[in-house]
C-alpha cells in the first residue's frame, strides 16, 4: 500500500472513536518558570535529608525523602544505631502529623473568651510587656513555671536557662512525659543510684521475659528491641520469649509461653521468680554476692491465683540455663509503689542472672532532661490551685489532655492568670491558654539531642515551614532578649544548637575542622562515640520496703491498660494510625474495652455492645469487644483511649453495666483460619508439611520467561512481630487514601498489605496462640487475575511483577473475585486527601480514581529508581538495592526482597529455607512470595 501504512490506516479508522473517547480540552495551561533556580534541587529527582524522629523518646534517626521541596516519605537512618534504617508505624505517621490539617497556622492571643489570630511581632511584644510587668525587684517572676516534654538537647538547655533566669522557684521547669517509664526510673535510682532507663541489647539475650512490657509496640525503644529480639529468631535454637500479663498483647503474640496472671499479679509472679532463683535448693549457678541479702529482703510468699508455682519454677529453670537473658517491665501504665516494686523485682532478677552489661545495659541512658518525678508535677498543679503560679509556659505539654481527671488540672489552669502554650495544635490545655505560639513541627526545625550517652542525633528541617510558626526555643530566646535576661547571650537558636552539637560531636571524637566535615556530619544525621555500659553496684539499704508486697488483688473485674503499635483509639492520632486496624482485634477508628469470653457470657455482653465502665475515679462508656486471650478478671482498654482519663490509673477495680445501646465498631477480618493452615507453625527444627496430591509447577500454558530479573519476596513468620510498620509505610509510599470509619465498617479499607491474624484456641487460655500473616499481592507466575481481565489492565511483566495498569482498568472486579489471596482492592469512591495532606502524595505513583482496581506493585517506582541509578552508573542492580517500602521499614527484618533469578541473592537463599512454603500451594499459582513457617509456637 503506497503512502498509507496499516497503522496509519488503523489510526484513521479510529480517529473518530478517539475523538469521542477523549476528555473535553481545558483552557490553555500555564507554565510558570522559577525566577531563580534553587541550588541542588532538581525537579523530578528526590533529595534525602537526615534528621531525628521525635514521635517518642526513642530518638530514631530518620532519612526524609523530599520531592520539589515537599517531604513525601520517612525512612530509618541506616547509619543510626537505634533505628538501623527501620522505622515503626508511628514514626512513619509523623509525616501526617506534619501535614495535619488541624495544625496551628499562626499565633493566637486571647481576646475575651476566645483565641484570635495575631501577628508574631504583636504577640511577642504583648507577651514581653506582660512578663515585664510581672517581674519583681530582682528581675524574676516568682510564679513562673515552665512545663515541657523531655528535651534532651539544646532546646532543653534553652528552656532551663530561661526558667532559671526569669523564674525564681528551684523547680521552675518541670519535665512532663505522660508515657515515661517512671517506675523503672525510680527503681533504678533506688537500687543502683541511677535515675535512668536501661538500654537493651536483646540480640544478646537467649531468653526474654516481659512482665507486660510492650517492648515491641511503644515501650522504651521498640524498633531497636524488635530488631534485637528477632535477630535471634528463625534459627532452630531461637530466642525464647515469655509473656507475663493478664492480656496477650502484640508483644505477647510473639511469645512462646504466656503466663496469664490475674490483673495486678505480675508483681507476685516477679517476686516468686526471684525467690526461686535465689533459693539454694535450685542451685542456680553464678549468683551474685548480694544474693543472700536480697533473699533476706524478700517479703513472705503469697499464694498466686493466675499462675502456678510449677510455671514459675519452669521459667526459673529456663532462665538459669539460657543466659544471658533479659527481663523487661513494668509497662508505662504501672505506677505508684506497686509499679516501683515490680520494676525493682524485675531488675533484681536481671542482676541475679548477671544480665547487666550484656543484654541489659545501664549507664548508657541519657540523663539529660530526665522527666521530673510525679511529685514535682502534682506540686506544680497544687501551687497553681493555690494561685501561686502567675505564668505557665507549656512546651508540647498537654496536662489537661493527658493526666487523669482526678488530677483536677482544669481547676489548676483556670487559676493561672497567664498561660502561654508553645505547641503544634490546639490541644485541651492550649484552649485555656492566653497566648498560643505555634512551634515548628520536628521535621521543620533545627535541633540536637542525646538519645543516649555517647550518641548525638542531629535534627534539621527537611522542608520550609508550612505555616506561620516559630521554633519555641527561638521564641524563648527572643523573649529573653526583649527582657534583657541575664546570662542568655545567644540570639539565634540555630547557631546555639550548632555550637552545642559541634562541641558534643568533638567530645565524641568527630572531626569537624573543615566546613565540609561539618556538613558531612549533618548529612550523616548522627554522631556515635563509644561508651561502656557499667556494672551497677546494688544499694541494699531500703530494699525490703521497696519490695513490699500487698495481698494479691481480690476477685472481680479490674481495669487493665495496654499499648498498641498503632493509635486507633487516640482521637488526636493521624489517619493512618487510626485506620490501619489494630493487629490483634481488627478495630479501627475508635477505642474499645476487651472482656474475656467467660466474663462476656456471664454478663451477657456481645461485641459491639456499649458498656458503662465505672471506677472509684469516674465513669466512661466504651464499646465491648470479646477477646479470645484475656484473663477473666480483666477489663482491658487501650492506653490511648481518652476514656481512660475518666477511669483513672489502671489496676483499680471496675464495674460494668450494659447501657442497652450498641456502638458500630469498625472491625476488619475474621480471626480464624478455619483449619486451612495459611500461617504455619512448626515444631522447633521441624519442616512444614507440604500439600499432598498436587503436582507443583505444572501449568497448562508454559510459565513466563523472565529474561532479566524475577522480583521476589520472602517473609519470615518467625520474625514478624505484627507491628504493622510495613502497612503504614505502604500507605505513605503508594498514596493509599484514608477512607474513614464508615467505609471501614463496610469492609472497604484500601490497604494493599495487611497483617492477617488468627487465634488458635489451645486446651487452656494460656495455650491459645495468635498466628500473624502479612498478606499482599503474591505476584504469581500463573496469576488467576490476569486471564480474566477483558482489557489487559493486569498482566505479567518481564520482571515477574503482576502489573495493574490503572488507566486501562474499567472496573469489572473480576480479577478481585478470582484472586485466591483477596489481594486486590477496588476504589469504591474517589479518594479524598484533606488539605494539606495531599502535599504528602508521592509524585512517582498515580493517585487512583473511583472505579479502578489497585493492588501491591512491589513498589515498582522504587524498582525503576534503583534500575535507573544502576544504569546511570553502568552496573547491574545490586542485591538489596531494591527495597519496597514495607521491606525497607521492617524493624524485625522479617521481609527480604530481591531478584530470585540470582541464586546468591538474599531472597533466593531465604526462599530455599527448609521452613519455606507458599500460600495456597494447591491452587498452583506459583507465587513470588515465599513464607517461612513460625517456629516453636504450641508448647
Amino acid at each position, binding site marked *: 500500500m503506497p503512502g498509507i501504512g496499516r497503522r496509519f490506516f488503523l489510526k484513521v479508522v479510529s480517529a473518530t472513536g478517539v475523538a469521542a473517547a477523549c476528555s473535553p*480540552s*481545558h483552557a490553555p495551561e500555564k507554565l510558570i518558570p522559577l*525566577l531563580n533556580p534553587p541550588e541542588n534541587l532538581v*525537579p523530578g*529527582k528526590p533529595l534525602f535529608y537526615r534528621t531525628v524522629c521525635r514521635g517518642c523518646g526513642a530518638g530514631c534517626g530518620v532519612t526524609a525523602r523530599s520531592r520539589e521541596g515537599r517531604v513525601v516519605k520517612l525512612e530509618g537512618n541506616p547509619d543510626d544505631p537505634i533505628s538501623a534504617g527501620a522505622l515503626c508505624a508511628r514514626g512513619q505517621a509523623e509525616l501526617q502529623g506534619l501535614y495535619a490539617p488541624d495544625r496551628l497556622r499562626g499565633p493566637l492571643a486571647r481576646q475575651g473568651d476566645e483565641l484570635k489570630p495575631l501577628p508574631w511581632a504583636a504577640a511577642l511584644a504583648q507577651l514581653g510587656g506582660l512578663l515585664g510587668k510581672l517581674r519583681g525587684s530582682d528581675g524574676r517572676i516568682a510564679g513562673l513555671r515552665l512545663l515541657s516534654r523531655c528535651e534532651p538537647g539544646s532546646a532543653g538547655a534553652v528552656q532551663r536557662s530561661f526558667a532559671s533566669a526569669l523564674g525564681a522557684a528551684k523547680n521552675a521547669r518541670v519535665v512532663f512525659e505522660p508515657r515515661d517509664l517512671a517506675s523503672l526510673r525510680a527503681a533504678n535510682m533506688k537500687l543502683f543510684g541511677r535515675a535512668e532507663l536501661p538500654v537493651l541489647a536483646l540480640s544478646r539475650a537467649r531468653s526474654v521475659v516481659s512482665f507486660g512490657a510492650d517492648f515491641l509496640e511503644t515501650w522504651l525503644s521498640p524498633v531497636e528491641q524488635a530488631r534485637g529480639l528477632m535477630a535471634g529468631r528463625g534459627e532452630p535454637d531461637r530466642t525464647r520469649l515469655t509473656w507475663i500479663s493478664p492480656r496477650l498483647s502484640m508483644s505477647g503474640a510473639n511469645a512462646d509461653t504466656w503466663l496469664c496472671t490475674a490483673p495486678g499479679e505480675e508483681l507476685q509472679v516477679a517476686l516468686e521468680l526471684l525467690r526461686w532463683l535465689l533459693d539454694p535448693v535450685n542451685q542456680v549457678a553464678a549468683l551474685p554476692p548480694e544474693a543472700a541479702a536480697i533473699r533476706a529482703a524478700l517479703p513472705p510468699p503469697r499464694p498466686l491465683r493466675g499462675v502456678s508455682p510449677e510455671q514459675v519454677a519452669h521459667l526459673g529453670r529456663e532462665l538459669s540455663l539460657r543466659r544471658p537473658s533479659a527481663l523487661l517491665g513494668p509497662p508505662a501504665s504501672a505506677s505508684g509503689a506497686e509499679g516501683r516494686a515490680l520494676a525493682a523485682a524485675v531488675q533484681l532478677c536481671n542482676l541475679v542472672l548477671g544480665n547487666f552489661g550484656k543484654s541489659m545495659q545501664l549507664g548508657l541512658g541519657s540523663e539529660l532532661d530526665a522527666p521530673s518525678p510525679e511529685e514535682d508535677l502534682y506540686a506544680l498543679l497544687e501551687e497553681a490551685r493555690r494561685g501561686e503560679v502567675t505564668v505557665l509556659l507549656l512546651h508540647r505539654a498537654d496536662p489537661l489532655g493527658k493526666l487523669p481527671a482526678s488530677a483536677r488540672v482544669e481547676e489548676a489552669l483556670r487559676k493561672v492568670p497567664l498561660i502561654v502554650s508553645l505547641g503544634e495544635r490546639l490541644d485541651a490545655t492550649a484552649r485555656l491558654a492566653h497566648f498560643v505560639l505555634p512551634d515548628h513541627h520536628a521535621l521543620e526545625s533545627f535541633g540536637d539531642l542525646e538519645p543516649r550517652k555517647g550518641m548525638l542525633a542531629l535534627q534539621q528541617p527537611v522542608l520550609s515551614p508550612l505555616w506561620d510558626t516559630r521554633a519555641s526555643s527561638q521564641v524563648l530566646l527572643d523573649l529573653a532578649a526583649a527582657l534583657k535576661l541575664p546570662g542568655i547571650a545567644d540570639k539565634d537558636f540555630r547557631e546555639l544548637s550548632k555550637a552545642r552539637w559541634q562541641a558534643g560531636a568533638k567530645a565524641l571524637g568527630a572531626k569537624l575542622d573543615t566546613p565540609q566535615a561539618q556538613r558531612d556530619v549533618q548529612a550523616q544525621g548522627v554522631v556515635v562515640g563509644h561508651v561502656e555500659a557499667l556494672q551497677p553496684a546494688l544499694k541494699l539499704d531500703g530494699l525490703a520496703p521497696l519490695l513490699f508486697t500487698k495481698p494479691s488483688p481480690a476477685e472481680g473485674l479490674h481495669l487493665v491498660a495496654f499499648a498498641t503499635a498503632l493509635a486507633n483509639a487516640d482521637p488526636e492520632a493521624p489517619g493512618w494510625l487510626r485506620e490501619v486496624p489494630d493487629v490483634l482485634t481488627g478495630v479501627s477508628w475508635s477505642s474499645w474495652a476487651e472482656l474475656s469470653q467467660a466474663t462476656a457470657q456471664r454478663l451477657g455482653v456481645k461485641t459491639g455492645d456499649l458498656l458503662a465502665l465505672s471506677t472509684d475515679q469516674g465513669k466512661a462508656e466504651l464499646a465491648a469487644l470479646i477477646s479470645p486471650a484475656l484473663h477473666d478478671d480483666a477489663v482491658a482498654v487501650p492506653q490511648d483511649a481518652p476514656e481512660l482519663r475518666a477511669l483513672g490509673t489502671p489496676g483499680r477495680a471496675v464495674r460494668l453495666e450494659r447501657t442497652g445501646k450498641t456502638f458500630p465498631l469498625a472491625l476488619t477480618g475474621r480471626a480464624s483460619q478455619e483449619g486451612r493452615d495459611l500461617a504455619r507453625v512448626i515444631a522447633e527444627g521441624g519442616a512444614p508439611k507440604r500439600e499432598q496430591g498436587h503436582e507443583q509447577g505444572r501449568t497448562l500454558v508454559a510459565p513466563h520467561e523472565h529474561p532479566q530479573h524475577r522480583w521476589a519476596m520472602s517473609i519470615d513468620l518467625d520474625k514478624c512481630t505484627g507491628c504493622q510498620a510495613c502497612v503504614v509505610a505502604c500507605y505513605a509510599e503508594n498514596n493509599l487514601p484514608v477512607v474513614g470509619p464508615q467505609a471501614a465498617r463496610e469492609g472497604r479499607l484500601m490497604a494493599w498489605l495487611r497483617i492477617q491474624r488468627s487465634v488458635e484456641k489451645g486446651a487452656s487460655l494460656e495455650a491459645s496462640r495468635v498466628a500473624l500473616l502479612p498478606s499482599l499481592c503474591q505476584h504469581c507466575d500463573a496469576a488467576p487475575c490476569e486471564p480474566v481481565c477483558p482489557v489487559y489492565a493486569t498482566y505479567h511483566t518481564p520482571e515477574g511483577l503482576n502489573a495493574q495498569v490503572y488507566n486501562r482498568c474499567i472496573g469489572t472486579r473480576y480479577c478481585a473475585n478470582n484472586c485466591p489471596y483477596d489481594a486486590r482492592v477496588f476504589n469504591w469512591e474517589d479518594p479524598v486527601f484533606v488539605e494539606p495532606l495531599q502535599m504528602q502524595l508521592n509524585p512517582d505513583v498515580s493517585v487512583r480514581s473511583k472505579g479502578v482496581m489497585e493492588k501491591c506493585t512491589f513498589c515498582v*517506582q522504587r524498582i525503576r529508581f534503583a534500575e535507573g541509578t544502576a*544504569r546511570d552508573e553502568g552496573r547491574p542492580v545490586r542485591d538489596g538495592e531494591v527495597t519496597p517500602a514495607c521491606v525497607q521499614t521492617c524493624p524485625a527484618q522479617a521481609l527480604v526482597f530481591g531478584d530470585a533469578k540470582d541464586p546468591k541473592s538474599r531472597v533466593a537463599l531465604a526462599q530455599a529455607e527448609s521452613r519455606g512454603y507458599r500460600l495456597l500451594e494447591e491452587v498452583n499459582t506459583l507465587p513470588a512470595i515465599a513464607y517461612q513457617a513460625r517456629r516453636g509456637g504450641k508448647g
Partner: protein
Amino acid sequence: MTRLGALLAPALLSAAAGCQAGAAPATADSQEVAFSHKTHAGDNQIGCTVCHSYARHSPNAGLAPTSVCIGCHKFVSKDKPGVQKLTAEFAAGRPLTFARVHRVPDHVFFSHERHLAQGVTCKACHGDVAAMARDEKVHDLQMGFCMDCHRQKQATVDCLACHK
C-alpha cells in the same frame, strides 16, 4: 489509496490534536511574551539544555528560570519590547508565564532523562523547534505515537515503563 491517505490525514490530525487532555494549542495572544525558539535555538544556536537544563538528568526538562534569561538579556537586544517586559517583571520579582504546548496526561510517567540517554533527539517529539518562531505541536504525543517509536527502536513496550 494514497489519495485516501491525503484525504484523511488532515481530518486525523485535527481529530487527534483536538483530543489532547487539556492542551489548547499555543496561539500568538496566549503567550505573555512573544518568545521565539527560532531566534534562540535557530539563529543563535543556543543548545536546548542551556534553558531546559534538567532534561539530561531528570524526568522533567525544566523551563529556563527568569534569571537565566536575564543572564543574556542584561546585554542582548534590550530594545525589544518583550525583553523590556521580561526585565521589568524580573525586577518586580514576578515570574513570566507561558502557555503550555506539549503535555502528557498525569498517568503517563515520561522521563526526558531516559530518552536523551538513549539518544532520542528533542526534535523527535517536539519537532524542529529551532525553526519555529511560534511554538506549535507537531506530534500528537498520544500513546500511539510513543508506541510507534518504541516498536521501531525495539524499546520496551511494557506498560509499567510509562504507567505506574
